[in-house]
């Protein structure tokens, strides 16, 4: 009702629009330019002989035609078996790679090989012209058969390895254009194919009834060049995604796990795919059986992703800093391709398991496949696989290019910052005051409008649950030990990812939040406010260089120079940075001669240049100190920090931004390529995107299946702590239209599967059985609600400064934390132990569950606060 009122006023609507724009709006979000054509997915088999077989290459499909259902343009004859196993005969069109002698490399030959190879590479799949091809070779296959030889070598190496576990590789290709190749290498043993899939994978049947593939999923989802367009709705039969990704095994477990899932045992092929029938037949006819000599050996397979960087430093940074996320996606590709290949390799002779005469797999006589041989490009039109690939590309594009949560700015000229509230406030002191005001006015607005009985106390319930699941606020109010340096194995990026997903408590729960509503403006306001409560630590990247020896000497004579400002020390990063800039400048003036530009960036740059000149002469490193032990003492080279990213003292201006496309300088909205802190909170998106911790959507219903698949997938994520694999993955859903909150969750449990082999690794065990659940949320914590309204009143009614109100909010959060500590101690000491099951976190306490009144009284809390307190105490 409120919303109706809200909408009925056109003027206010306009203002709202304006406001929404300032919150999330349409001003240029400048992510690295990245589109689907820059992502290439390749699957290869190494048969162990000289040939490497391409099973799939997304560059073969036609990503830039939106209507590529018309697969008839792919002429089977153009790559028929006559050619493709003959290697050198037609290398360019051949998908089987002919590898040169796989003995130890001859160094002097490599350059030669290289140039030869390069000449074969087609520079760009999109630009390749059909003119150079014989007219009979219409279609896209030949055009796109570029540098696959090179990639094959990179993926498998030049000498086969006998290691059978999962191998990870990353290559950087300079030519023909900068590309990163990410590879997962794995093997499939005949034993992987032995067991009868139908016994094992009953659960798949539930989805196989609805695996009809809609027409647009044939790799065509990513048909556009821009990130915005990438989120165009794809009509997807999402039920398939759902189960498709649901049950996996993990990396290295394969060796020990005899059998994995087959494909859905039946396909209902879409009419459009039906159209491919002729083609399929001809493909099958030319399938060539080979290498039957070694039926018992296993074969290596690879799934690789080529990312074209197009000289985009930001994209490059993103790939390296977000590898954990990317890798999870790679694992999904791998899991699926593993299943599909197993299915292809396995005979499935029983006609009863195949429904429909259109199935590719319906003619057992034709597809009797030996373990060593698959047809070239056999996955090229596999609808399931195409869907997996599409999904992979979409989610990757989304990760890079989606607009993120940003602060509302009253000053329209300053529409540049798009960052999570807490992180921005904590990193950039000069932004605090302004952001505190924005936060308080947004919070007040939301509480006024959506936090009374009529609106189901929507905001209070939402924030209660945010605090309950996104627990990383806890360390921010606690006396907290610095984690840096305490543990040799500490990985700040990894910790940050865990923080964002709220993986703090026990059991380990991964949480994300989606706010859905057609009222974009309000959704954005909510997202903005929530980005204050979903917290993580900043990660600073030091860009450090050895000071050339000559300069070191000069410096030493002048002043004792402390080059390394440790960020964890007392000095604030900004102090440190200022210092370093000074140092850089001092050094610069010594080297001078470089044009003295206005900006620090140029200072740094010029300094670097002069330094590298120096470096070349200091090979004759002098030797000073001698040890009495068996090792000679060598002094640690002195170094200096060139820059710190993000630079807390930085006030971004437009001018800076334009001049700033260097690695050492990133404007605020480019910082997201550096760590997870700014990359996992999306703004208002047209459609669901994977992996985001926070996101706004018009409607969640239609994406629920994709979300559920993601939740399941996240259970496969490597554990954030060794002791505790992620056991639950949940999504808090706030639906603005109905003013309801709920939790969608997945829970892994270790059940026993009849007929299954015992789990071998924790990981795999952990993933076997997944419960899904849905819990409506209708309890607000009195404590949280009071806290919020008090803040609002202090701000709006009394006119207290916004920062003061936030101070109060933080005080209340800290007290909450202390109450949790006391609760934990109370439960530990109390003889009448408070029994709250772990389920308590997700479901309302059952009627007969005794709420421990004593505890509440002792803590000064309301019954409704108990779940929250319990969650917080689980972090202790």
């Amino acid at each position: 009702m409120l919303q109706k009122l809200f909408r009925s006023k056109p003027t206010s609507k306009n203002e709202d629009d304006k406001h929404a724009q300032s919150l999330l709006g349409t001003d240029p979000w400048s992510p690295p330019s990245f589109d689907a054509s820059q992502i290439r997915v390749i699957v290869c088999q190494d048969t162990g002989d000289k040939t490497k077989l391409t099973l799939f290459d997304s560059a073969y499909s036609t990503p830039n035609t939106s209507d590529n259902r018309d697969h008839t343009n792919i002429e089977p004859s153009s790559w028929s078996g006559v050619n493709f196993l003959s290697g050198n005969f037609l290398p360019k069109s051949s998908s089987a790679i002919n590898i040169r002698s796989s003995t130890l490399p001859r160094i002097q030959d490599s350059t030669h090989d290289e140039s030869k190879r390069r000449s074969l590479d087609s520079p760009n799949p999109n630009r390749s012209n059909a003119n150079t091809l014989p007219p009979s070779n219409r279609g896209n296959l030949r055009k796109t058969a570029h540098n696959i030889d090179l990639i094959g070598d990179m993926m498998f190496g030049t000498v086969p390895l006998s290691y059978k576990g999962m191998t990870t590789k990353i290559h950087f290709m300079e030519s023909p254009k900068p590309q990163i190749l990410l590879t997962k290498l794995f093997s499939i043993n005949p034993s992987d194919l032995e067991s009868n899939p139908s016994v094992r994978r009953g659960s798949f049947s539930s989805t196989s009834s609805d695996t009809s593939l809609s027409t647009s999923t044939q790799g065509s989802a990513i048909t556009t060049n821009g990130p915005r367009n990438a989120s165009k709705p794809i009509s997807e039969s999402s039920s398939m995604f759902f189960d498709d990704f649901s049950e996996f095994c993990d990396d290295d477990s394969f060796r020990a796990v005899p059998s994995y899932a087959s494909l859905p045992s039946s396909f209902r092929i879409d009419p459009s795919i039906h159209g491919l029938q002729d083609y399929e037949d001809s493909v099958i006819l030319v399938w060539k059986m080979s290498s039957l000599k070694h039926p018992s050996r296993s074969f290596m397979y690879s799934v690789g992703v080529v990312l074209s960087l197009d000289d985009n430093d930001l994209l490059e940074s993103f790939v390296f800093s977000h590898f954990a996320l990317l890798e999870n996606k790679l694992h999904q590709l791998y899991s699926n391709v593993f299943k599909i290949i197993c299915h292809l390799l396995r005979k499935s002779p029983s006609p009863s398991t195949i429904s429909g005469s259109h199935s590719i797999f319906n003619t057992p006589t034709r597809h009797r496949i030996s373990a060593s041989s698959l047809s070239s490009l056999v996955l090229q039109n596999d609808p399931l696989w195409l869907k997996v690939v599409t999904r992979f590309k979409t989610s990757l594009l989304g990760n890079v290019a989606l607009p993120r949560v940003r602060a509302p700015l009253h000053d329209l000229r300053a529409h540049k910052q798009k960052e999570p509230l807490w992180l921005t406030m904590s990193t950039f002191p000069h932004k605090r005051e302004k952001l505190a005001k924005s936060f308080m006015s947004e919070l007040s607005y939301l509480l006024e409008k959506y936090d009374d009985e009529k609106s189901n106390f929507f905001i209070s319930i939402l924030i209660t649950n945010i605090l309950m699941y996104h627990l990383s606020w806890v360390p921010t109010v606690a006396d907290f030990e610095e984690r840096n340096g305490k543990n040799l194995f500490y990985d700040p990026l990894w910790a940050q990812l865990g923080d964002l997903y709220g993986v703090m408590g026990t059991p380990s729960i991964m949480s994300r939040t989606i706010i859905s509503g057609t009222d974009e403006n309000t959704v954005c306001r909510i997202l903005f406010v929530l980005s204050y409560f979903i917290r993580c630590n900043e990660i600073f990247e030091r860009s450090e260089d050895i000071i050339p020896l000559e300069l070191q000497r000069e410096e030493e004579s002048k002043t004792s120079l402390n080059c390394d400002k440790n960020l964890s020390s007392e000095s604030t990063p900004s102090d440190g940075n200022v210092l370093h800039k000074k140092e850089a400048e001092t050094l610069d003036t010594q080297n001078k001669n470089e044009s003295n530009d206005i900006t620090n960036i140029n200072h740094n740059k010029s300094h670097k240049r002069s330094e590298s000149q120096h470096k070349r002469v200091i090979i004759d490193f002098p030797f000073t100190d001698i040890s009495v032990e068996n090792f000679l003492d060598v002094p640690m080279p002195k170094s200096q920090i060139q820059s710190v990213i993000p630079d807390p003292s930085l006030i971004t201006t437009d001018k800076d931004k334009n001049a700033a496309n260097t690695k050492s300088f990133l404007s605020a909205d480019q910082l997201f390529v550096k760590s997870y802190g700014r990359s996992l909170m999306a703004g208002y998106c047209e459609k669901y995107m994977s992996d985001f911790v926070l996101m706004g959507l018009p409607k969640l219903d239609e994406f629920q299946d994709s979300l559920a698949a993601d939740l399941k997938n996240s259970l496969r994520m490597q554990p954030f702590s060794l002791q505790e694999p992620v056991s639950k993955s949940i999504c808090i859903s706030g639906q603005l239209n109905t003013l309801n909150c709920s939790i969608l969750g997945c829970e892994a449990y270790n059940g026993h599967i009849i007929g299954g082999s015992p789990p071998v690794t924790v990981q795999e065990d952990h993933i076997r059985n997944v419960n899904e659940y849905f819990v409506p949320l209708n309890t607000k914590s009195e404590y949280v609600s009071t806290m919020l309204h008090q803040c609002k009143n202090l701000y709006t009614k009394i006119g207290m400064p916004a920062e003061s109100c936030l101070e109060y909010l933080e005080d209340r959060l800290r007290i909450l934390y202390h109450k949790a500590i006391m609760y934990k101690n109370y439960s530990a000491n109390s003889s009448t132990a408070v029994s709250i099951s772990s389920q308590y976190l997700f479901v309302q306490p059952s009627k007969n569950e005794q709420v421990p009144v004593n505890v509440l009284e002792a803590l000064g809390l309301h019954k409704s606060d108990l779940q929250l307190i319990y969650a917080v105490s689980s972090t202790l």
Partner: protein
Amino acid sequence: MNAIVSLVHFCEADGPSVIFCTQAFHDNAAEDVEECLSASNGRSSPVPARTILEKENGTLSNKKDLLNAVRSGPASCASCAFSLPPPDTLGDIKVLNYSEKKGFKTEDDENPLITYVGSRYPQHPQLYSAVRQACVRSLSCEFCQGREGPVLFGDDKNGYVLSYMFKIRDSQARGFQRLYSFIFLMTDRIYLVASWPFLVSKFKSLATDLQLKASQIFEKEGSTLSPSSPDQYLRRRTNQPLRSLVDLLKTKDLFVYIHANFSWILKACGRRLQEKHVNDQTLFPNTSFLSQHSVFHTPTESNVDNKIPSNSMKESSTWIENLKSLQDMLGVVNFRKLILNFIRGNQLIICGSDSKIIKSIVSIIKDLVSNGCSVMENGTDYQPITKCNILCIPTSTKIPSEMNFLNIFLHIYNIPSKDEDSNKTIRFNLENGIDEHTIGIVNVNKSYSPPNLYINQLSEILNLNLSPELMNMRLEMFKEEWSSKVKQYLRFIIDGDNIDPGVDKPVNGLIISNSLRQLELIRYLDVNEIDLPTLKFLSDCLKNA
């Protein structure tokens, strides 16, 4: 940083071989290796639980290499030799036992517990095997475009490796060049990948240094040596191995240079990404005052003595333990009166001779306001409230007669015990001060109905049946709650009329007077009007603290 950097070489005679390694040792090196090899704990990126880097044959298909991969390794040919700089290059200092030196060590200038040690092989056999694997794999298995540049590979068993390949010109080598690689080995692939940009740029510049030097020498040699004919090449091959890197580059302390760079790379790589923990106290510096967390600091440990007497009258003969004991001794009514007077800013005068008891009472009461009030513990004469909030004087001290309800007197008398032990019984007497029911609205039935929140809440807490430890926590929380309100109140007072005018006023268009707003403020803070003096007193204490 748990990683090893090494320089490896594809030798014409021996194939892939390790030349030099630098690794970090921490003060407890043995444990580190164990940790590194087994699982990590805490929040590192995932490393599988099973032991990695375990030695297993058959990992590589190249059988010859496997045979070589034994601890000692083959006696290296000159081509793959690592050598210390000759003693005469070491300056004036005399080198003792030069022949026993195995390598280099470098102290970490930021962390004294870390030492970087450079030698031909890692000392630990498992690490040796891992480095050896990485060497063979990067030089003869992995393919890298142009054999120059970075490649990352690895698995959970053998660890993850970033290998930066490069070629060095050598007029005597086959094809006039030799293949080397810098390899960086660690188990945390997420961290390794994140370090890619850093490592690649450092390796690249290091490689460029070496290449440049080699090229210069190559140019020189090119003029003196005739082009290497196949014949010449074969002759050389049979007779002597290629020169060592030191000779090739004509740099005697080459490995010093390499080790120094490796050490620095290890150090800088480990510190490149720094997590900055920000808590709300950094964010809002004002937040920290008055917040005492001592009780909460170590929630699992119990620092509180459990032998707290339940009946303090009897056993508190020496001192009074805590608020609850004080309440027990004074009785609820007196206790409330005492606290109420104090917390409303009245002066507390304690008269007595037992300094231990007095001290303990002072510390208990003072603790309510976190050192913000002034105390005169050994007063002899009367001092007005402007001088101190709590005054301790001997019973003999003369008190001005005009004392009234702005002061409250606590007289403490010791009565000798009848028992033979030296225990004393203590009697108290309260004098002056205000009574609860004289402030606020006096209720008909004389209950404590004028809800003086502070004292009511305190009483409620003290009535809880909690262990001393929990009671302590609860009281801390109580104080924290009040201090948070007080902070707002103080800010309100300080800001005075200058409170942000841009914010909506409560009533349309009406300008609200400050005193009215003050009432409203305390209402939003869940404080009753009757507590206003308490807020004032506490905020004064806060200012002084």
